[in-house]
């Protein structure tokens, strides 16, 4: 049930237009309908969508979309440019105070990820900005919220200021700021309780904390999966306490994340960071262009390339290619490749980042079973050196031994041998057309089938 991206949506309209020669105003209108549809499916707020589509329509009408031979692509480009622009630039800069300490407040709805992000942010400030953070446990409502932050602090070895749950959060924050001054901790990050934007009493509490020492940053933490309501939430928090930036969490999921656009539009505040996992180092800077692609369902190509670049050794990749061409690819090379792929992160996520991946049948729901990967490794480890380089010699007896040694079945071994052969064949063919970019994508279905 993966949603179609904008490009796929527009393809239907394009087929109709093709052969007509010229794009009519009605065609543009129809394309705009698809844009509207795609954005709403991506959870962009309806009112924001309307505004956005109006703007895009004007640009599309005024530009050469109608004369273009590829009007669909033109529209996609305009939409994406507009979106990227709306998302703002890359702004992960944090404001630090000249008057110690710098105060950062984390606010948001229940369960958005404030406490986790408080920890992540502290880790990042320590690492990248050489700050000495103090975490403040100002959530006295949620059961065990204090223990949660204390555990986070312990995991990071960053001090946590807590005073139990019997004093008011405002008082806790006040004391924490004093404590930070005394201990020469230069950055105070206040973890506040989750609250509804319509809860006046609790919104007042935030205003009171804010009044202690004007925070240098007030981050609204928002779940990337948020739907239409994101506008109400962002607007209310911003109006009540004046946020300075946004952290979008849980973007390691498969949501389109249209809330990002809604929030930007209504608050005009920068999205500074994105949460990419539950672990305390999973905080990244926000890339507007990638977010735009993601909302439009165009695949997060840039992230993929970046991941590949950081984890695949160029030199080794070249050697590998050579091996494919000369058919001297062995199980040892295979193991090495597996290790590299694993370094890139969860495989199914990598697969999903490929543009057009949702068009490959079955891949939209691709679940790569990584325990299968472990099984593959176990089988290879149970082979002798000779077997690894010349798998042809693996006869029934050897198969039995390998299966026993790796705790798998003979069928598993057979399957791997067959897949290895297929892969070699395919790789050989592909290395021949290496110059033609894009064909490389084809390797993915093959790889994918290995882990199903």
């Amino acid at each position, binding site marked *: 049930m993966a949603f179609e991206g904008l490009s796929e949506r527009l393809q239907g309209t394009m087929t109709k237009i093709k052969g007509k020669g010229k794009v009519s105003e009605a065609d543009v209108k129809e394309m705009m309908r698809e844009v509207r549809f795609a954005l709403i*499916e991506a959870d962009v707020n309806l009112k924001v969508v309307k505004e956005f589509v109006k703007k895009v329509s004007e640009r599309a009408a005024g530009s050469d979309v109608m004369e273009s031979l590829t009007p669909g692509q033109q529209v996609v480009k305009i939409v994406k440019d507009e979106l990227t622009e709306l998302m703002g630039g890359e702004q992960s800069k944090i404001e630090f105070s000249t008057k110690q300490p710098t105060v950062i407040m984390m606010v948001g709805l229940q369960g958005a990820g404030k406490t986790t992000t408080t920890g992540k942010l502290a880790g990042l400030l320590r690492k990248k900005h050489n700050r000495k953070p103090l975490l403040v446990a100002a959530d006295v409502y949620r*059961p065990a919220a204090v223990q949660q932050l204390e555990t986070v602090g312990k995991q990071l070895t960053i001090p946590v200021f807590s005073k139990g749950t019997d004093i008011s959060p405002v008082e806790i924050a006040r004391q924490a700021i004093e404590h930070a001054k005394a201990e020469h901790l230069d950055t105070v990050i206040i973890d506040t309780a989750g609250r509804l934007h319509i809860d006046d009493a609790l919104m007042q509490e935030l205003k009171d904390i804010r009044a202690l020492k004007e925070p240098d940053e007030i981050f609204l933490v928002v*779940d990337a999966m948020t739907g239409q309501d994101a506008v109400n*939430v962002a607007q209310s928090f911003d109006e009540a306490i004046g946020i300075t930036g946004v952290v979008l969490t849980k973007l390691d999921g498969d949501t389109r994340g249209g809330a990002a656009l809604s929030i930007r539009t209504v608050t005009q505040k920068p999205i500074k960071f994105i949460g990419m996992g539950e672990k305390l180092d999973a905080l990244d800077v926000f890339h507007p262009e990638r977010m735009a692609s993601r909302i439009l369902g165009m695949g997060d190509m840039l992230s993929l390339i970046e991941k590949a670049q950081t984890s695949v050794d160029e030199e080794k990749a070249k050697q590998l290619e050579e091996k494919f061409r000369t058919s001297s690819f062995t199980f040892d090379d295979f193991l090495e490749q597996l290790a590299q792929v694993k370094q890139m992160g969860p495989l*199914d996520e990598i697969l999903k980042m490929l543009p057009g991946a949702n068009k490959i049948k079955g891949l939209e729901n691709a679940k790569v079973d990584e325990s299968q990967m472990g099984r593959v490794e176990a089988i290879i480890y149970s082979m002798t050196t000779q077997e690894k380089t010349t798998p042809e010699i693996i006869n029934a007896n050897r198969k039995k031994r390998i299966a026993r040694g790796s705790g798998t079945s003979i069928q598993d071994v057979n399957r791997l041998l067959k897949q290895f052969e297929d892969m070699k064949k395919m790789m050989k063919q592909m290395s021949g057309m290496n110059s033609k970019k894009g064909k490389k994508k084809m390797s993915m279905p093959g790889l994918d089938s290995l882990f199903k």
Partner: protein
Amino acid sequence: MSFFKKLKDKFAGNAEQEQSTEKYKEGLEKTRTGFTSRINDLVAKYRKVDEDFFEELEEVLLQADVGFETVLELMDELRYEVQRKNVRDTSNVQSVISEKLVEIYQAGEPELNEIKFADGLTVILMVGVNGVGKTTTIGKLAHRLKNEGKSVMLAAGDTFRAGAIEQLDVWGQRVGVDVIKQAAGSDPAAVMYDAVRSAKSRGVDVLICDTAGRLQNKVNLMNELEKVHRVLGREIPGAPHEVLLALDATTGQNAMIQAQTFKEVTEVTGIVLTKLDGTAKGGIVLAIRNKLKIPVKFVGLGEKMDDLQPFDPQKYVYGLFAEGLDKEDKLEEDSADK
């Protein structure tokens, strides 16, 4: 004047139906009768069923996160019905529309919003993505079941997230039920195994198992959940008897994929729609019920022990409109001010 403004006016004059201005919470407590006739009344107020009317209806539903596909389907059906019956007389139009409106919330079996109890120990497994309200719902549900006279035990199956075990522990103390737990970082399946053993030996009626929040696209974590599910079934045939998926009402279209994936992995039997005390409506549950046939069993209406209510489809759908109605009203006032 808009359709919804009229709808509001209609309600305003009627004491029994004044909940149009109240929160869904209060609405839940009211009787479920009269919804159809209410819609009939509303539509009667609206003279022309024209494109403006449909558009307004469409926008209210879209802003409740119902989702484009479902909304369009509904609109098409409405248009078709109106045309097919060739209704010119407004009194006929109203019946057509009310029929269809009622259809979208029809949950089918009325007893679907209750927990199915087994003969001996009933095991309930709580699943869902991060931060949606699983642990809190367990606390509330334990409280509810205890009030119904059941003996309840909780299993701290989230051994991963910081403070998760302590959180469930606090709920156990609040409600006054035992919590079976192991150290942070232990194997959740082992915790479940332990818990089932204890529950059996102590002869409790219901065991509610907490699990760590996990995004549905994390294969390893979904495999882990499958294992937990399997362990429960191995220890007690038929367990878990209920698998409740917690969905945050604030979540948009991704909730559909959540429901689909969790259903595949754990045979979800019902949804708990949490955080409905906010301004989000969680309209995607309509599409989920429609496509995946998973009923909503409970709704979460706050962070306190008794903020859990059985789901009432009629009241819920009514809430979708009532909210839209309030909004329209406000918008009109706003523009009148200008």
